């Protein structure tokens, strides 16, 4: 079915993205240099320049539900080489944020979000990353699913995990810092501020 192109959709999405700090998508002339240099392009459903294109055309859901915004490894090659000096990697950040807020995160990419969440949860509660705890936390939620998709994963991670322990690279207890509560407060305040912003 043909995608509907509507002025309101185009304008409102462009405005939304720009106000969120994602830049003016209209500046992109679709040369594709970002896609050409993207190391993870082969894992994407939309190429980076197509993401910008969708923003230009107000195709909101296509972008927010895309795997691409989560496949992006934030390596910043696109931003560095863009002839129009458009900060495409940052646009990805912005789109991820909106995608999370609206619960549109691509199903196949949920692991990335789960990992980020596990990571941040760990930081929120300890002030620093408690790697073992985080890995455990993450694996509990995802290992089973991953194993179904790619059985080698378990085995490989096992290899790595074993090594980590054997090489004394993982602590069993989190380091605790004085500012623990302070960091927690920062998380709370950020959440509150973002809520109020989201409402606007």
């Amino acid at each position, binding site marked *: 079915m043909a995608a509907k192109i509507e002025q309101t959709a185009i304008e409102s999405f462009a405005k939304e993205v720009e106000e969120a700090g994602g830049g003016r998508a209209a500046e992109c002339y679709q040369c594709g240099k970002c896609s050409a240099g*993207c190391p993870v*392009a082969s894992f994407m459903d939309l190429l980076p320049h197509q993401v910008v294109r969708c923003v230009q055309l107000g195709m909101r859901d296509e972008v927010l539900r895309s795997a691409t915004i989560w496949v992006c490894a934030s390596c910043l090659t696109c931003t560095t080489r863009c002839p*129009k000096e458009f900060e495409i990697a940052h646009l990805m950040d912005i789109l991820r944020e909106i995608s999370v807020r609206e619960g549109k995160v691509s199903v196949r990419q949920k692991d990335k979000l789960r990992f980020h969440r596990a990571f941040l949860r760990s930081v929120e509660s300890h002030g620093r990353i408690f790697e073992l705890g985080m890995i455990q936390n993450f694996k509990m939620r995802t290992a089973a699913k991953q194993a179904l998709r790619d059985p080698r994963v378990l085995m490989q991670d096992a290899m790595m995990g074993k090594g980590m322990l054997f090489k004394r690279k993982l602590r069993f207890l989190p380091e605790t810092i004085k500012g623990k509560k302070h960091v927690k407060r920062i998380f709370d305040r950020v959440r509150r501020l973002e809520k109020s912003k989201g409402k606007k």
Partner: protein
Amino acid sequence: MARIGVFICHCGENIARTVDPIACAEAAKKMRGVVHAVEYKYMCSDPGQQMIKEAIAEHRLTGVVVAACSPQMHETTFRRASAEAGLNPYLCEISNVREHCSWVHEDKAAATEKGIDLIRVMVEKVKKNEELQPIKVPVTKRALVIGGGIAGIQTALDIANGGHEVVLVERTPSIGGHMAQLSETFPTLDCSQCILTPRMVEVGQHPRIKLYVYSEIESVDGFIGNFEVKIRQKAKSVDTKLCTGCGACQQVCPQKKIPSEFDVGLGTRTAIYSPFPQAVPNKPVIDRENCLRFRAARKKGIPIDECTVCGKCYEECPIEPRKAVDFSQTDEVVTEKVGAIVVATGFELYPTDAYGEYGYGKHPDIISGLEFERLASASGPTTGEIRRPSDGSVPKNVVFIQCVGSRDNAKGIPYCSKICCMYTAKHTMLYKHKVHDGQAYVFYMDIRSGGKNYDEFVRRAIEEDGAVYLRGRVSRIYRKEGRLVVLGVDTLSGKKVEIETDMVVLATAMQAQPQTDKLAQTLGIPYDQYEFLSEAHPKLRPVETNTAGVMLAGACQAPKDIPDAVAQGSAAASKVLGIFSSDELEREPVVASVDENICFGCLACKEVCPYGAIEEKEIKDRDGNVVRVVAQVNPGVCQGCGLCVAACRANCIDLAGFNDEQVYAEIKAL
């Protein structure tokens, strides 16, 4: 008692949309001295001009103010109309209510208010205007053409064949420019040198063309019809009067490994050299940087005639008794008087080593479009065979990349270089015609092939010669086992692509010759932020600059292909011939004059005058004794900048058309 008429133009809707003409007319009627104010749809139209003429007669007007477009556009129209009605044209002034008002503001009320102000300013000014008579100046009917590329050659030939002398100045040892370096030309694929060299020879033989090669412009003084130009002839170290161009000297020169400018470094030349076989003039020069004798002399710190190193070229020179080779020659500065100047200094290519993602010119097999021309040219270093600079092998495939530097804000060049789409298509054909089993790939953003038979040409490259076009920019090129890997994208299929190739050709951006800004400053003509020279009007005065008597031709004004450059060359020539068509020129009477009764001869004015238009004049009593010295302006030389007026300590100099009274009147009106 002043009797001013005010005429407000609607310019269709252009002015009327935001500046209310009726309100303006009403307001104008109330202004002191205004006896007549009307508005009309198109003041510049015949009926519009007729209204002005009739009003002048009917209301016995002593001044006219037309509120319309910029004076750059129709000032002459309305002044001529006034003159036809018997009013001195310099009693007609323009209020610029379009470019400076209606086009740049949206709020109708505010814009109208501003429009009325702009009218009042001119009403007050015109009240103070005086009748002026245009100044007549003689014309030197010789032209100077700067730059010996195809544009300069065309201009010079057209002017010379039009019956006037031309001084043609070229920086390098030969005329021909970039066109001489090209192999074939689009969209016809005819050999570039085959069509260029006849023109070069014609220039060389032309009785009315005086050719200065290996020369540069030192200074330019004067004004339209009367320029005085100083030209520096760099020392050729060869007496061109004696030299027959036999070439014996080049045979024996031991310095054989100097990268040839003509072959863009792909070939070599000797230290005493003439850039290419068909050079005009075909007389060598010694490149003093690389000549062994000059090097030795510099090293030892001794004068060149005491240096005895090498000298093979001198010994070999067959001319007797005095040899043509002359080491002790020095730069020479000559002065030429001309009436008009045409600038045709052309372009250069953006360097290939400016791209980190393409390896900073590290890889010898990544070359520029111009280098490819030399590879493909029969007169080139490979005698027309396409071979890799790195190992001389024939590339099995070649990747061409367009818009390298062009349309690239990050590289500071947002403009399109115009010719790359076409010459890249040409390159793919040349390559296919020479390497039948080879494959050409082209990365492009858009194909810009507007022009007679241009798009057909590109289609031919794709449909008949099988060039594969991919839409997208290349992000990176890197080495892999002696080949190059090109990481690109084809946005049409939505695929990231990777091509292993033997050679990459970058269609790098066209930019103005270095130092173009310096030249522009010498000539007092404007240029844009990319150092391209600015034409007087983007559409209607494409070859004139806003300095009278100075024209533009070719790529010094903007990226151009050969047909455009040639067309502009002829256009510039016709402008010059126009100037030369009369013995005298009429010039705006905007000149300064001194009130000798007040002047106490401090001559501060003389110091600041850029044109040396101010002389000392001795006032004598009846016995012929000098009583005092005063300043005197030569109206033929004065250009009306007004520097002297502002500099005058006695307030005794004033500038016709912009005198103090007029300016104060304008300020008061606001």
